[in-house]
């Protein structure tokens, strides 16, 4: 089936893209990897009059360290994230998230920014990015603002972005010494899968074998948006890591989750799996923190 008709634009830089987003009348959609937009257009759930491709804007397609922060251009593909040696060495959980998104073919097209702006509750990159305390830069022809990912998602399919804004980059602080993180996705198969439950956890220790200084636990697919399990995090702070401590954190996280019943799993099952995955990700994060 043919896609609906639209006018197509390929701005060469960000300023031109922002101007187009602001000035084109009617419905405008930015196009990055297309793995969502093109499917939705084919299904006729969206039929924009104007499509503004961001794929030729070089500044959106690079990633790298800038001081203590790692910046990821919104149009970097998920495959490039998974293949980055810097991501693999500093942001292990993010690499894990990238490697379980879609399929290898989809990852060669899908972009990091796209996985965020679509605001799907089961998306694979928000939990690890939030576990690292990530933020996003939103740019319009009027202003630029930095929004922590924790405040970015409003409900399924909706974010704080204004209609003419473009998500330009993702910013994460380089994790401190003696810290580690892990992301685990539970699905019924290992590729082309939408999570039943996913959990990303981050731990920072005072020293290898020392107390827990800070912790972030992020739950995916068990609430309308990815959520922090703050009570579970509180049970960890100032404690010496142990299996029983992680069991308690897992049970607390399960109580904080707000899953629904659907064809992928029941709420009861999801809550039980939140507990299991929280324990497993904390254990993996701990092992990495000791290195």
């Amino acid at each position, binding site marked *: 089936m043919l896609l609906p008709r639209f006018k*197509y634009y390929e701005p060469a830089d960000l300023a031109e893209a922002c101007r187009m987003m602001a000035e084109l009348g009617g419905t405008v959609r930015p196009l990055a990897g297309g793995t969502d937009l093109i499917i939705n257009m084919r299904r006729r759930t969206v039929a924009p009059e104007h499509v503004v491709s961001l794929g030729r804007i070089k500044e959106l397609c690079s990633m790298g360290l800038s001081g203590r922060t790692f910046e990821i251009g919104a149009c970097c593909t998920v495959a490039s994230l998974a293949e980055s040696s810097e991501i693999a060495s500093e942001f292990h959980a993010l690499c894990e998230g990238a490697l379980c998104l879609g399929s*290898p*073919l989809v990852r060669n097209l899908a972009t990091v920014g796209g996985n965020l702006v679509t605001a799907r509750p089961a998306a694979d990159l928000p939990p690890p990015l939030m576990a690292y305390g990530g933020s996003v830069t939103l740019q319009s022809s009027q202003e630029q603002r930095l929004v922590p990912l924790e405040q970015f998602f409003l409900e399924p399919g909706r974010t704080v972005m204004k209609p003419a804004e473009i998500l330009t980059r993702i910013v994460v602080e380089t994790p401190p010494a003696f810290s580690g993180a892990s992301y685990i996705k539970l699905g019924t198969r290992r590729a*082309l899968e939408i999570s039943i439950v996913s959990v990303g956890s981050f731990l920072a220790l005072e020293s290898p074998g020392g107390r827990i200084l800070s912790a972030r636990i992020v739950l995916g697919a068990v609430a309308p948006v990815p959520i922090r399990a703050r009570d579970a995090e509180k049970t960890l702070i100032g404690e010496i890591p142990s299996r029983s401590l992680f069991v308690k954190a897992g049970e607390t996280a399960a109580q904080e989750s707000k899953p629904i019943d659907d064809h992928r799993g029941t709420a009861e099952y999801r809550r039980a799996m939140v507990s299991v995955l929280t324990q497993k990700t904390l254990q993996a994060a701990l092992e990495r923190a000791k290195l």
Partner: protein
Amino acid sequence: MKKTIHITFNHKPFELAVEPNQTLLEVIREKLGLTGTKAGCLVGDCGACTVLLDEKPVNSCLVLAVQADGKQVTTIEGLETPQGLHPLQTAFVDKGAIQCGYCTPGMILTAKSLLDRNPRADEPGIRKAISGNLCRCTGYQKIVEAILFASRTTP
């Protein structure tokens, strides 16, 4: 309004006038008549429409033709040389890795991309690489065997 684009298909440059809403898959099959690339699910799930875009395997149903402007595209028709079939094509035939054949072009292109990057790929690596290419006939065993065979026998 049509847009003029330049794409190198199977090492030959083409200038094409396309509508923005035409996908790369539609242009390959309908404008160029290269029907080796198959239309399957059209939502990026099955991998039947796999082509190599700048040497990387992608679902051509999810790419607008205008997005491929200035890039190189390899389809299954681009693998055979005057010397004969590509070693992966031969391996698929010899190992019986083909039944209905619908997934085969995509499967072979994905495998080519893997072996180009990692000529000695092992079985787990092969299974991961083809995880976006669905086959409903073979149960994958012979496909994996064919790719393994090609990886061992290609100099």
